[in-house]
């Protein structure tokens, strides 16, 4: 089963982080939270989450990386040269997946991996993703990228990531009451 590393920088958006881990683990994938310091990390709304590993550890061995948004979480990812190098390294390798949502997508732009690819991001973020084909869709998978819009969209984002990694999410959507809740 594929493995996913979620990169949790200080100021991460809690829902965009823990909901993604929740869903990907339910989907049967290995999914670990990476922090950039020892100990719990504070999110955008003051919640502390304990990581599984401290970056970089074995992050390069994972099949996919996920960059959540949040303020200043997304900016902290973009301003970390080691994260930008990792994105470029994943982009250069066949079979690796790079996923980002909300303000996390600015790290993809910084790494220069969005040119000519279909992406989405938070409202108004088209201008932050020059060279990309920005779509007004809840979650977008194109080439080696999966992107999504914002705080209320980690469900379709995580389902899209799981599907890109070969998991059928139709039963999971039912079990999590996503369809019942009006999820698109």
């Amino acid at each position, binding site marked *: 089963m594929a493995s996913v590393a979620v990169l949790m920088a200080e100021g991460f958006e809690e829902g965009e982080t823990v909901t993604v881990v*929740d869903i990907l683990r339910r989907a049967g994938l290995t999914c670990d939270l990476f922090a950039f310091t020892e100990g719990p990390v504070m999110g955008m709304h003051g919640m502390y989450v304990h990581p599984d590993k401290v970056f970089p550890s074995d992050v390069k061995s994972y099949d996919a990386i996920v960059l959540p948004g949040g303020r200043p979480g997304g900016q902290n990812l973009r301003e970390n040269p080691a994260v930008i190098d990792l994105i470029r390294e994943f982009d250069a390798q066949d079979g690796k997946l790079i996923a980002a949502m909300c303000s996390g997508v600015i790290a993809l732009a910084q790494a220069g991996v969005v040119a000519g690819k279909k992406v989405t991001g*938070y*409202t108004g973020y088209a201008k932050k993703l020059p060279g990309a084909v920005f779509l007004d869709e*809840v979650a977008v998978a194109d080439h080696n990228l999966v992107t999504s*819009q*914002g*705080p*209320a*969209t980690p*469900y*379709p984002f995580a389902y899209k990531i799981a599907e890109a990694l070969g998991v059928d999410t139709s039963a999971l959507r039912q079990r*999590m*009451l*996503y*369809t*019942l*809740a*009006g*999820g*698109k």
Partner: protein
Amino acid sequence: MRDGTLITSRGPATAYAFGYALVDAMGGDSLAVKNRMVYFSAFEEDGGN
């Protein structure tokens, strides 16, 4: 759903609708929060009801 002093909800993916119901019950404006969170992009407006 709300009945008297109780607000209840069903499962993992209904946490947004649940949270917004709490906001409204406490006198907040859930519509503004929904819009900032891009809720209507992911979920139907009636929350599946």
